Protein backbone atom coordinates (compact mmCIF):
# COMPACT_ATOMS: atom_id res chain seq x y z
CA UNK A 1 0.00 0.00 0.00
CA UNK A 2 1.21 3.48 -0.79
CA UNK A 3 -0.09 6.29 1.33
CA UNK A 4 -0.59 9.55 -0.47
CA UNK A 5 -2.06 12.42 1.43
CA UNK A 6 -3.64 15.26 -0.41
CA UNK A 7 -1.40 15.84 -3.44
CA UNK A 8 -1.18 14.85 -7.06
CA UNK A 9 0.31 11.47 -7.78
CA UNK A 10 3.44 12.89 -9.42
CA UNK A 11 4.54 13.93 -5.96
CA UNK A 12 5.05 10.26 -5.16
CA UNK A 13 7.28 9.80 -8.21
CA UNK A 14 9.26 12.92 -7.29
CA UNK A 15 9.71 11.66 -3.73
CA UNK A 16 10.89 8.28 -4.99
CA UNK A 17 13.31 9.86 -7.48
CA UNK A 18 14.70 12.08 -4.72
CA UNK A 19 15.55 9.02 -2.71
CA UNK A 20 16.53 6.34 -5.19
CA UNK A 21 18.81 8.65 -7.20
CA UNK A 22 20.65 10.34 -4.37
CA UNK A 23 20.38 8.12 -1.30
CA UNK A 24 20.77 4.48 -0.38
CA UNK A 25 23.88 2.35 -0.18
CA UNK A 26 26.75 3.36 -2.44
CA UNK A 27 29.30 0.63 -3.15
CA UNK A 28 32.00 2.56 -4.96
CA UNK A 29 32.21 6.04 -3.57
CA UNK A 30 30.71 9.17 -4.93
CA UNK A 31 33.44 10.55 -7.16
CA UNK A 32 31.59 11.48 -10.29
CA UNK A 33 32.34 12.46 -13.84
CA UNK A 34 29.71 14.56 -15.51
CA UNK A 35 28.95 13.88 -19.14
CA UNK A 36 27.94 17.30 -20.34
CA UNK A 37 24.74 17.34 -22.31
CA UNK A 38 23.88 13.80 -21.40
CA UNK A 39 23.03 14.46 -17.80
CA UNK A 40 24.36 11.16 -16.49
CA UNK A 41 27.23 10.53 -14.17
CA UNK A 42 29.48 7.50 -14.11
CA UNK A 43 31.06 6.51 -10.82
CA UNK A 44 34.11 4.57 -11.90
CA UNK A 45 32.88 2.26 -14.63
CA UNK A 46 30.49 0.48 -12.39
CA UNK A 47 27.82 2.78 -11.10
CA UNK A 48 25.49 4.97 -13.05
CA UNK A 49 23.34 7.53 -11.38
CA UNK A 50 21.42 10.56 -12.51
CA UNK A 51 22.59 14.05 -11.86
CA UNK A 52 20.40 16.48 -10.00
CA UNK A 53 19.71 18.23 -13.29
CA UNK A 54 18.54 14.98 -14.82
CA UNK A 55 16.26 14.40 -11.89
CA UNK A 56 14.69 17.81 -12.31
CA UNK A 57 14.31 17.24 -16.04
CA UNK A 58 12.66 13.91 -15.45
CA UNK A 59 10.21 15.48 -13.07
CA UNK A 60 9.39 18.17 -15.60
CA UNK A 61 8.78 15.83 -18.49
CA UNK A 62 7.17 13.01 -16.56
CA UNK A 63 3.87 12.28 -18.25
CA UNK A 64 0.71 11.62 -16.32
CA UNK A 65 0.34 8.22 -17.97
CA UNK A 66 3.82 7.00 -17.01
CA UNK A 67 4.04 3.86 -14.86
CA UNK A 68 2.28 4.65 -11.65
CA UNK A 69 2.54 3.73 -8.06
CA UNK A 70 0.15 1.40 -6.40
CA UNK A 71 -1.30 4.12 -4.31
CA UNK A 72 -4.42 5.06 -2.54
CA UNK A 73 -5.42 8.18 -0.75
CA UNK A 74 -5.40 8.13 3.00
Amino acid at each position, binding site marked *: *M*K*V*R*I*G*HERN*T*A*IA*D*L*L*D*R*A*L*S*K*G*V*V*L*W*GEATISLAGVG*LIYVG*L*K*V*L*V*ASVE*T*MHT*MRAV*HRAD*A*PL*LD*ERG*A
Partner: protein
Amino acid sequence: MTMLYVYGVVDSPSLGDSPLTGHDAASVFAVPCGDCAAAASNLSRRTVVPGPGSVWLHEQVLEALMRRHAVLPLRFGTLVPDADMLRNRLAAMLPALGDDLRRLRGRVEFALRVTGVDAGCLRAGDAAETNDAARTLSPGTRYLRAQAERRRHRIAFEDAARGTERALRRHLDPAAESAAWGLATAQSTTLVASYLVPREDASAFAAAVADVRAHHPALEISCTGPWAPYSFVTVRPPEA
Protein backbone atom coordinates in the same frame (compact mmCIF):
# COMPACT_ATOMS: atom_id res chain seq x y z
CA MET B 1 28.92 -7.29 -21.98
CA THR B 2 26.64 -8.63 -19.25
CA MET B 3 26.64 -6.62 -16.03
CA LEU B 4 24.98 -7.20 -12.70
CA TYR B 5 22.40 -4.65 -11.66
CA VAL B 6 22.21 -4.57 -7.86
CA TYR B 7 18.97 -3.60 -6.09
CA GLY B 8 19.78 -4.02 -2.43
CA VAL B 9 21.34 -6.05 0.35
CA VAL B 10 19.28 -8.48 2.44
CA ASP B 11 20.01 -10.08 5.80
CA SER B 12 20.02 -13.64 4.43
CA PRO B 13 22.24 -15.59 2.03
CA SER B 14 19.18 -16.37 -0.11
CA LEU B 15 16.17 -14.41 -1.32
CA GLY B 16 13.50 -17.05 -0.76
CA ASP B 17 11.41 -19.05 -3.20
CA SER B 18 9.16 -16.44 -4.80
CA PRO B 19 10.56 -15.39 -8.19
CA LEU B 20 11.31 -11.70 -8.62
CA THR B 21 11.67 -9.90 -11.93
CA GLY B 22 14.01 -6.97 -12.40
CA HIS B 23 15.18 -4.76 -15.27
CA ASP B 24 14.66 -6.20 -18.77
CA ALA B 25 12.44 -8.89 -17.20
CA ALA B 26 15.52 -10.68 -15.87
CA SER B 27 15.25 -12.83 -12.75
CA VAL B 28 16.53 -11.38 -9.50
CA PHE B 29 18.93 -13.69 -7.67
CA ALA B 30 21.14 -13.67 -4.59
CA VAL B 31 24.87 -13.03 -4.57
CA PRO B 32 25.67 -14.31 -1.08
CA CYS B 33 28.35 -12.81 1.13
CA GLY B 34 28.59 -13.98 4.72
CA ASP B 35 25.17 -13.84 6.37
CA CYS B 36 23.95 -11.32 3.78
CA ALA B 37 23.31 -11.31 0.07
CA ALA B 38 23.02 -8.75 -2.65
CA ALA B 39 19.87 -8.96 -4.79
CA ALA B 40 20.93 -8.63 -8.41
CA SER B 41 19.86 -9.39 -11.96
CA ASN B 42 21.75 -9.75 -15.21
CA LEU B 43 21.76 -6.78 -17.54
CA SER B 44 23.03 -7.02 -21.09
CA ARG B 45 23.96 -3.33 -21.28
CA ARG B 46 26.14 -0.94 -19.36
CA THR B 47 23.58 1.63 -18.34
CA VAL B 48 20.08 1.89 -16.98
CA VAL B 49 18.37 5.11 -17.92
CA PRO B 50 16.89 6.69 -14.81
CA GLY B 51 13.23 7.42 -15.30
CA PRO B 52 9.99 6.98 -13.40
CA GLY B 53 9.44 3.46 -14.78
CA SER B 54 12.92 2.11 -14.17
CA VAL B 55 13.22 3.73 -10.74
CA TRP B 56 9.82 2.41 -9.78
CA LEU B 57 10.87 -1.10 -10.84
CA HIS B 58 13.95 -0.77 -8.60
CA GLU B 59 11.66 0.17 -5.72
CA GLN B 60 9.22 -2.68 -6.46
CA VAL B 61 12.00 -5.24 -6.21
CA LEU B 62 13.08 -3.76 -2.88
CA GLU B 63 9.56 -3.76 -1.53
CA ALA B 64 9.07 -7.40 -2.52
CA LEU B 65 12.29 -8.26 -0.70
CA MET B 66 11.20 -6.25 2.34
CA ARG B 67 8.22 -8.56 2.82
CA ARG B 68 10.62 -11.29 3.92
CA HIS B 69 13.92 -9.65 4.84
CA ALA B 70 15.59 -6.66 6.32
CA VAL B 71 16.73 -4.74 3.22
CA LEU B 72 19.20 -1.96 2.56
CA PRO B 73 18.31 -0.22 -0.70
CA LEU B 74 21.18 0.47 -3.06
CA ARG B 75 21.24 3.72 -4.94
CA PHE B 76 19.50 3.37 -8.29
CA GLY B 77 21.83 2.46 -11.13
CA THR B 78 24.42 0.37 -9.30
CA LEU B 79 26.10 -1.85 -11.89
CA VAL B 80 28.87 -4.33 -11.23
CA PRO B 81 30.87 -6.25 -13.85
CA ASP B 82 30.67 -9.62 -12.09
CA ALA B 83 29.66 -11.44 -8.92
CA ASP B 84 33.22 -11.76 -7.60
CA MET B 85 33.74 -8.01 -7.66
CA LEU B 86 30.40 -7.52 -5.93
CA ARG B 87 31.22 -10.10 -3.25
CA ASN B 88 34.61 -8.51 -2.60
CA ARG B 89 33.06 -5.10 -2.14
CA LEU B 90 30.31 -6.41 0.12
CA ALA B 91 32.88 -8.30 2.20
CA ALA B 92 34.76 -5.06 2.83
CA MET B 93 31.55 -3.40 4.04
CA LEU B 94 30.00 -6.35 5.85
CA PRO B 95 30.16 -5.14 9.49
CA ALA B 96 28.60 -1.78 8.61
CA LEU B 97 26.00 -3.42 6.37
CA GLY B 98 25.08 -5.74 9.24
CA ASP B 99 24.67 -2.80 11.61
CA ASP B 100 22.35 -0.98 9.19
CA LEU B 101 20.35 -4.14 8.47
CA ARG B 102 19.71 -4.68 12.18
CA ARG B 103 18.78 -1.03 12.73
CA LEU B 104 16.44 -0.78 9.74
CA ARG B 105 14.75 -4.18 9.98
CA GLY B 106 10.99 -3.73 9.73
CA ARG B 107 11.30 0.03 9.15
CA VAL B 108 9.95 2.02 6.23
CA GLU B 109 10.42 5.60 5.10
CA PHE B 110 7.84 8.31 4.55
CA ALA B 111 8.51 11.47 2.55
CA LEU B 112 7.07 14.86 3.40
CA ARG B 113 7.02 18.09 1.40
CA VAL B 114 5.87 21.30 2.99
CA THR B 115 5.18 24.48 1.05
CA GLY B 116 3.45 27.72 1.92
CA VAL B 117 5.93 28.67 4.64
CA ASP B 118 5.53 32.42 5.19
CA ALA B 119 5.67 33.09 1.45
CA GLY B 120 5.18 36.82 2.15
CA CYS B 121 8.87 37.08 3.04
CA LEU B 122 9.96 36.26 -0.48
CA ARG B 123 7.28 38.30 -2.20
CA ALA B 124 8.46 41.35 -0.23
CA GLY B 125 11.97 40.75 -1.54
CA ASP B 126 10.76 40.68 -5.13
CA ALA B 127 8.88 43.91 -4.59
CA ALA B 128 12.12 45.73 -3.86
CA GLU B 129 12.98 45.79 -7.55
CA THR B 130 9.87 47.73 -8.47
CA ASN B 131 9.95 50.22 -5.62
CA ASP B 132 9.61 53.73 -7.14
CA ALA B 133 12.12 55.30 -4.74
CA ALA B 134 14.68 52.68 -5.67
CA ARG B 135 14.41 53.64 -9.35
CA THR B 136 16.10 56.99 -8.64
CA LEU B 137 19.28 55.27 -7.48
CA SER B 138 22.15 54.34 -9.74
CA PRO B 139 21.90 50.87 -11.23
CA GLY B 140 24.80 49.62 -9.13
CA THR B 141 23.38 50.92 -5.86
CA ARG B 142 19.96 49.62 -6.78
CA TYR B 143 21.40 46.23 -7.53
CA LEU B 144 23.32 46.06 -4.24
CA ARG B 145 20.33 47.22 -2.22
CA ALA B 146 18.10 44.69 -3.91
CA GLN B 147 20.60 41.96 -3.19
CA ALA B 148 20.81 43.00 0.46
CA GLU B 149 17.05 43.08 0.75
CA ARG B 150 16.71 39.67 -0.85
CA ARG B 151 19.26 38.36 1.60
CA ARG B 152 17.36 39.85 4.55
CA HIS B 153 14.13 38.32 3.36
CA ARG B 154 15.81 35.01 2.72
CA ILE B 155 17.06 34.98 6.32
CA ALA B 156 13.55 35.84 7.49
CA PHE B 157 12.17 33.00 5.39
CA GLU B 158 14.68 30.56 6.78
CA ASP B 159 13.72 31.62 10.32
CA ALA B 160 10.07 31.03 9.44
CA ALA B 161 10.96 27.65 7.92
CA ARG B 162 12.76 26.61 11.09
CA GLY B 163 9.73 27.65 13.12
CA THR B 164 7.44 25.65 10.86
CA GLU B 165 9.73 22.65 11.11
CA ARG B 166 9.71 22.85 14.91
CA ALA B 167 5.92 23.11 14.98
CA LEU B 168 5.41 20.13 12.69
CA ARG B 169 8.04 18.02 14.39
CA ARG B 170 6.31 18.42 17.74
CA HIS B 171 3.39 16.46 16.26
CA LEU B 172 5.19 14.07 13.91
CA ASP B 173 8.39 13.04 15.68
CA PRO B 174 6.60 11.13 18.46
CA ALA B 175 4.94 8.98 15.76
CA ALA B 176 8.28 7.99 14.19
CA GLU B 177 11.63 6.57 15.13
CA SER B 178 13.85 9.04 13.33
CA ALA B 179 13.53 12.08 11.09
CA ALA B 180 15.64 14.23 8.79
CA TRP B 181 14.50 17.69 7.71
CA GLY B 182 15.88 20.25 5.30
CA LEU B 183 15.12 22.49 2.35
CA ALA B 184 14.58 20.80 -1.01
CA THR B 185 17.51 22.83 -2.37
CA ALA B 186 19.61 25.64 -0.93
CA GLN B 187 17.34 28.42 -2.27
CA SER B 188 14.11 26.44 -2.20
CA THR B 189 10.98 27.47 -0.35
CA THR B 190 9.95 23.83 0.07
CA LEU B 191 10.73 21.98 3.25
CA VAL B 192 11.32 18.27 2.83
CA ALA B 193 11.53 15.57 5.45
CA SER B 194 12.14 11.86 5.70
CA TYR B 195 10.63 9.84 8.52
CA LEU B 196 11.67 6.37 9.59
CA VAL B 197 8.68 4.46 10.89
CA PRO B 198 8.21 0.85 12.05
CA ARG B 199 6.06 -0.81 9.39
CA GLU B 200 3.35 -1.66 11.92
CA ASP B 201 3.10 2.03 12.86
CA ALA B 202 2.65 3.28 9.29
CA SER B 203 -1.08 3.90 9.68
CA ALA B 204 -0.53 5.79 12.93
CA PHE B 205 2.07 7.97 11.23
CA ALA B 206 -0.28 8.70 8.32
CA ALA B 207 -2.93 9.68 10.86
CA ALA B 208 -0.44 12.02 12.55
CA VAL B 209 0.26 13.68 9.20
CA ALA B 210 -3.46 14.11 8.56
CA ASP B 211 -3.78 15.68 12.00
CA VAL B 212 -0.93 18.10 11.31
CA ARG B 213 -2.52 19.12 8.01
CA ALA B 214 -5.76 19.86 9.80
CA HIS B 215 -3.94 22.06 12.33
CA HIS B 216 -1.92 23.94 9.70
CA PRO B 217 -4.36 24.72 6.88
CA ALA B 218 -2.10 27.46 5.47
CA LEU B 219 0.59 24.90 4.69
CA GLU B 220 0.59 22.50 1.76
CA ILE B 221 1.81 19.21 3.18
CA SER B 222 2.25 16.09 1.06
CA CYS B 223 3.21 12.69 2.40
CA THR B 224 4.14 9.63 0.36
CA GLY B 225 5.32 6.19 1.32
CA PRO B 226 6.06 3.72 2.62
CA TRP B 227 9.36 3.54 0.76
CA ALA B 228 12.49 1.50 1.33
CA PRO B 229 14.55 3.37 3.96
CA TYR B 230 16.94 5.10 1.53
CA SER B 231 17.48 8.18 3.69
CA PHE B 232 18.47 6.26 6.80
CA VAL B 233 21.28 4.17 5.39
CA THR B 234 24.52 5.12 7.11
CA VAL B 235 26.98 2.62 5.62
CA ARG B 236 29.62 4.27 3.44
CA PRO B 237 31.94 2.69 0.88
CA PRO B 238 35.49 2.11 2.03
CA GLU B 239 38.12 4.53 0.76
CA ALA B 240 39.54 3.41 -2.56
